[in-house]
């Protein structure tokens, strides 16, 4: 099913009488958001199937393990309340879903997270099959992430299946939205975020086929998922009889065929597992080439002390790299959203967060070009900034400012202005002086452009919206850490 509850969860305050409809593709039900409540309206025809599913063993198991979003059926009294403010419930049923904090979209996930979402989809499809049910669609928009853990959110995707039907109609969609973006990433270097940002329904086999060399077209995974479907598609392109229902005589046979198909897809997904990525930024935290050992230890110690003293509950780590400081914040009890534009380091952070079971949501987001609002009327998936504004009580921008100032040519006042929109209280920012070796390296001889940037001018810009709580020079170097508090923040 298409993007929906997530699109709403970050909805800014709206009057109760103005619900926002965020799902309209699935005829079996609609989703709307009323303030921060996610409501799903199900017509009477779909109620028996949904009620049976909600009481099933699979639903209980997945919900208790956090792999399925929590849902509850609203009482008639609650429905009447909603009807009284203009929300029509018809004669069906209204479900309320637990909100997942900070929704993210597939085009913000590294390949590792897309892979994890695909695995959850297949696991659920396989378990439902044993109960005589199935998934009618298979798109990554059916999944959100709670920290690093995927959560299936689209309960209306679950349907009773015809026991004699041996075909999974969502198969092609699973291939388009999970398998082909992962294969294109692995074999063609096509970033997952690029493939999925520009295409709601993923990649077509014919499209990927054109990007491959003849040799690649014959590799097993690509042959079965790209080349053969492309050739078959040409053969029966105009044959509409293809789109007729198929049934076999024996229900056990239909189930056996689907079981084999899902097992095969699981094996295929394993072949798409992204290798531990490496990029020019992967070794940044381990080599600390821009810090002496003493400076790095001082930086770590300062950040740790800030996290322990102020105990922020929600942290945004901008330019997180492989996430040493994000993990540190999560260990101090914070829910962390960590962003970086390098998918390799974000994927590495996701692996670490999963391994250490820490509440870190790593996303591939370029802070200088954050994810835009996309979808129909630009309303299906809100922009990253719309979701992030005011959501955090601490924003960390460590070793980030100089990249924005030098490489992106963004004025310091703009950077601090945006930081003030994102944080409700604190900003921990690293000032890197133009004399710093890294600063000069990325400036590539354009030192003159940054002649006016000094420690004093930086402090003056900060004072417009923040007051300095602490500042700390890293072991007599050209870098300072500033802990700033927003002037308008509550005491």
């Amino acid at each position, binding site marked *: 099913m298409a993007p929906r509850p997530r699109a709403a969860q970050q909805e800014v305050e709206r009057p109760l009488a103005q619900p926002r409809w965020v799902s309209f593709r699935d005829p079996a039900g609609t989703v709307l958001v009323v303030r921060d409540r996610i409501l799903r309206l199900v017509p009477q025809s779909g109620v028996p199937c949904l009620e049976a599913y909600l009481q099933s063993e699979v639903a209980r198991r997945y919900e208790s393990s956090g792999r399925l979003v929590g849902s509850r059926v609203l009482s008639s009294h609650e429905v009447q309340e909603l009807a009284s403010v203009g929300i029509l419930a018809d004669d069906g049923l209204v479900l309320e879903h637990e909100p997942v904090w900070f929704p993210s979209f597939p085009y913000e996930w590294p390949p590792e997270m897309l892979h994890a979402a695909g695995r959850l989809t297949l696991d659920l499809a396989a378990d439902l099959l044993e109960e005589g049910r199935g998934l009618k669609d298979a798109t990554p928009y059916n999944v959100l992430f709670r920290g690093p853990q995927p959560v299936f959110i689209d309960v209306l995707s679950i349907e009773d299946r015809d026991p004699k039907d041996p075909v999974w109609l969502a198969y092609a969609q699973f291939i388009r939205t999970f398998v082909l973006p992962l294969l294109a990433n692995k074999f063609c270097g096509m970033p997952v975020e690029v493939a999925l940002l520009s295409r709601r329904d993923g990649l077509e086999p014919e499209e990927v086929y054109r990007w491959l060399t003849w040799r690649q077209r014959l590799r097993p995974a690509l042959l079965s998922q790209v080349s053969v479907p492309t050739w078959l598609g040409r053969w029966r392109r105009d044959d509409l*009889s293809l*789109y007729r229902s198929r049934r076999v005589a024996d229900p056990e046979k239909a189930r056996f065929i689907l079981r*084999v198909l899902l097992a095969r897809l699981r094996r295929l997904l394993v072949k798409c597992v992204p290798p531990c990525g490496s990029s020019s930024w992967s070794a940044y935290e381990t080599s600390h080439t821009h810090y002496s050992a003493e400076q790095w230890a001082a930086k770590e110690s300062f950040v740790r002390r800030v996290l322990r003293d102020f105990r922020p509950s929600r942290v945004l780590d901008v330019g997180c790299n492989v996430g040493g400081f994000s993990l540190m914040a999560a260990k101090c009890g914070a829910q962390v959203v960590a962003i970086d534009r390098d998918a390799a380091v974000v994927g590495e952070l996701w692996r670490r967060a999963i391994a250490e079971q820490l509440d870190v949501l790593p996303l591939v987001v370029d802070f200088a070009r954050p994810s835009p609002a996309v979808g129909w009327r630009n309303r299906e998936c809100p922009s990253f900034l719309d979701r992030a504004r005011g959501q955090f009580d601490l924003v960390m921008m460590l070793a980030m400012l100089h990249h924005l100032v030098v490489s992106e040519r963004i004025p310091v006042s703009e950077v601090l202005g945006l930081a003030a929109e994102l944080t409700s209280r604190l900003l921990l920012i690293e000032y890197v002086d133009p004399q710093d070796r890294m600063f000069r390296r990325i400036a590539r001889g354009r030192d003159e452009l940054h002649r006016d940037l000094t420690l004093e001018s930086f402090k003056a810009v900060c004072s417009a919206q923040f007051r300095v709580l602490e500042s700390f020079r890293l072991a007599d170097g050209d870098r300072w850490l500033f802990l700033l508090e927003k002037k308008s923040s509550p005491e």
Partner: protein
Amino acid sequence: MRCFLADVVVLLLGLAVPLLAYSDPGSGALLLQLLMAGVVGLLFQLRKIIFWFKDRIK
């Protein structure tokens, strides 16, 4: 055997009932799935025959 042949005919030609899906079922991918279903269906029949013989031997 008659059952198997009936399944093959159904898988390749389909029934006169249209698909009920709102997600795009694809074309090449759907055909590939039908072919795989045919092969796996054949394996299912063979497996049944083998089990039948095993039961008889016991």
